[in-house]
């Protein structure tokens, strides 16, 4: 909901919308809901051809953005996908890309980066562990050095698009401290089990690592020094997630306003009842606030601003909490039809509820903000 898109970005939005309208309308999403996998690989290939996994990558490394600010372009794209709750592994793959780009002081991963950018590989971040919240820097999964290899043991869950991912960016604890590894999903000892998901097409899975051996060149960045890349990955993930959510709530709000004009009760349109009008006014205000903070966070991350961490968590705190509230209120405005399977509202409700929960809940991000500002004070 950037009101000041460049002409190139506007063309990009139009092309994206056109592609999605043709290839991934809500009816297609509903079809995919019945399948084992939430999207077809060939569809993601076409997205990759449109640059969906290349926007963060510098031109010299085979990437290229629309506006020169790749993350902002990605956010625009995420918003468009949010408008139709499309199933793309946009966040998953680009978060891995962001991590690889952030950690340039370790083994070379440019080959994988190229394949990710081309859509040949799908990446995902394996960061959650069973029974824990979002605590990326204290993984229980261990990686023990044995000569020129590491042996990984542990379990990750809530791994996005686990069933289709080729590359897992895994947070692990080594003797040196928190370390990330890039592990092909096909490696011996890696077992992926799909899990139930509230979203109909965005799937998650559990990934077990039983004595998984990887070379030292699987390390991303330096051993024990994962913190900066992890922070970067979190920021990129939340920027894309809130942008997608904003796209979803604006779309839901649009068709709910229209419904309020069209639907009559007691001889008057719903839109004429003050109690409902006031709730629409609140929703409009919250939606604009969501768009504003989501964009502010994206800009700060794009610019590498020192405020990026708190703005990203502010965006998640606000958008993560308000979006489900807005969609539920839109369900209320629709009445009974709003809770039927055949109405599209629940597709959006599922998506924003998943987005509320993943990569830190609003509550987790609020505590993070408190920690960040208290750390700032101590430095100052």
């Amino acid at each position, binding site marked *: 909901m950037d009101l000041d898109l460049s002409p190139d970005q506007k063309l990009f939005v139009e092309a994206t919308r056109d592609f999605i309208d043709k290839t991934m309308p809500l009816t297609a999403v509903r079809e995919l809901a019945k399948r084992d996998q939430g999207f077809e690989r060939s569809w993601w290939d076409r997205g990759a051809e449109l640059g969906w996994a290349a926007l963060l990558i510098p031109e010299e490394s085979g990437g290229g953005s629309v506006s020169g600010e790749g993350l902002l372009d990605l956010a625009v794209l995420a918003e468009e996908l949010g408008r139709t709750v499309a199933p793309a592994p946009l966040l998953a793959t680009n978060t891995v890309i962001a991590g690889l780009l952030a950690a340039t002081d370790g083994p070379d991963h440019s080959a994988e980066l190229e394949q990710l950018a081309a859509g040949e590989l799908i990446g995902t971040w394996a960061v*959650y562990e069973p*029974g*824990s*919240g*979002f605590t990326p820097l204290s993984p229980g999964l261990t990686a023990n050095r044995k000569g020129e290899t590491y042996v990984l043991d542990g379990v990750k*869950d*809530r791994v996005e698009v686990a069933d289709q991912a080729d590359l897992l960016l895994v947070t692990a604890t080594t003797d040196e401290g928190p370390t990330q590894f890039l592990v092909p999903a096909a490696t011996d000892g890696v077992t992926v089990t799909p*899990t*139930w*998901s*509230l*979203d109909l097409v965005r799937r*998650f899975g*559990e990934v077990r690592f039983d004595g998984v051996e990887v070379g030292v060149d699987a390390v991303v960045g330096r051993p024990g020094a994962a913190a900066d890349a992890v922070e970067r990955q979190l920021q990129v993930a939340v920027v894309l997630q809130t942008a997608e959510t904003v796209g979803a709530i604006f779309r839901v709000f649009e068709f709910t306003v229209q419904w309020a004009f*069209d*639907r*009559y*009760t*007691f*001889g*008057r*349109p719903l839109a004429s*009842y003050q*109690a*409902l009008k006031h709730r629409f006014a609140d929703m409009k205000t919250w939606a604009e606030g969501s768009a504003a903070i989501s964009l502010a966070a994206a800009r700060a991350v794009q610019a590498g601003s020192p405020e990026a961490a708190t703005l990203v968590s502010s965006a998640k705190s606000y958008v993560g909490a308000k979006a*489900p509230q807005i969609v*539920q209120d839109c*369900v*209320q405005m629709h*009445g*009974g039809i*709003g*809770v*039927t*399977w*055949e109405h599209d*509202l*629940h597709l959006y*409700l*599922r998506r924003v*509820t*998943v987005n*509320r*929960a*993943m990569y830190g*809940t609003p*509550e*987790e991000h609020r505590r993070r903000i408190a920690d960040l500002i208290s750390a700032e004070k101590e430095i100052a």
Partner: protein
Amino acid sequence: MSQATAAPVTTGPDGMETVESFRLRARAWLAENMPRLPEATDDVAPEGDDDAAWVRARELQRTLWDGGFAGICYPKQYGGLGLSEAHQHAFTEESLPYEMPLLLNVPTLSICAPVILDMGTEEQKLEHLPKVLRGDEVLVQFLSEPSGGSDLAGLITRADRDGDVFRINGAKTWSTSAYAADFGLCLTRTDATVPKHRGLTMFLIPTKAPGITMRRITQVNGSTEFCEEFFDDLVVPASSVVGEVNGGWTVGSRQLFHERTAVGGGSPYVSGQGARSAGTAKLDLAELARETGQGDDPRVKELVGEAYAQEKVQEALIGRIVSAVEKGQFPGPSASIIRLFHAETDQQHVDYEVAIAGSAAVTGPAGQRSAGYAGQHYLMRQGASLGGGSTEMARNIISERILGMPREHAADRDVPFNEVKRGR
């Protein structure tokens, strides 16, 4: 099944069995005759998908009937016990550990049958009420319409008189468990040339009659407990009118009163108390906190305590309002207060389920019990503020009919129905 003879009957000065005596008898009888509730399972089958549950519910109600514990607050002449709400309450408390025919509570026992009791002809009462209390007849409401919403009286299903019969044409929706029912209370328009409230008639119609086509509605959580019905020249005799011809609004209003009371949790006509199925039962938040390793987290404890308090308030409020309405201390529309409170309580609970479950609410092992339900429940969050009359209508009623504030401008007031403006 044995009549409960173990405990002796003690009667009060009014000749009625004392509540305590009734409670003790019920306790003994329940222990002997009703199956104890099974342990909670991981089964997440959504409501309405298991038709065997209906057979079971009818059997359980029959057991109550045979044991002399069916229809505690129904009059004796129609098969009930003719006892007080206090008796009903005592029985409900005693029944909590047992399997009860909860599926029959809404709408059969707590809404439809009370309407027949209040407004039906003597023939209708004698014909239907004993069957209902025996578990032989399940009832349903045919009220809402696809084009409807809150404006119930604006319905367009027509019933045209044709000699001794009426011919019904139109469509109804949101009829709870209609697929399992035998008869339905169906509100229709019999005169479109007068303002909307004055041209309605209520019928009690057989649900399996030719001319009715039924379709089950799938809800977002997979439940198919609601149905949609299409009436295509359904023919019913004039004797199936409940109340007066063109006096249907009076009957419907009574029905809404019973519905609000039932949805709020204050009906005296139920058999037991609890959620209709495991999939929709509220999660125990304290348990959820422990399961997710947050039992000692002060922020989670606050949510647990607040939700617990809210439920205690709800219990106390239901007691207060039901008693006050019964005694005439509060006007009848006060039932809307408990209806509104129910929605607040339910929605706060599901919000806290989601907040405590965190990301476990949205993905996890298939069929996982606690945390995963949270996300599922959240999809149906608005059910509590939609079903049984929206909370918006409840707020209108409270402000207008309890506080006496000016009524909302209705563009269709006093306008012949066939001249009222309708949306797209």
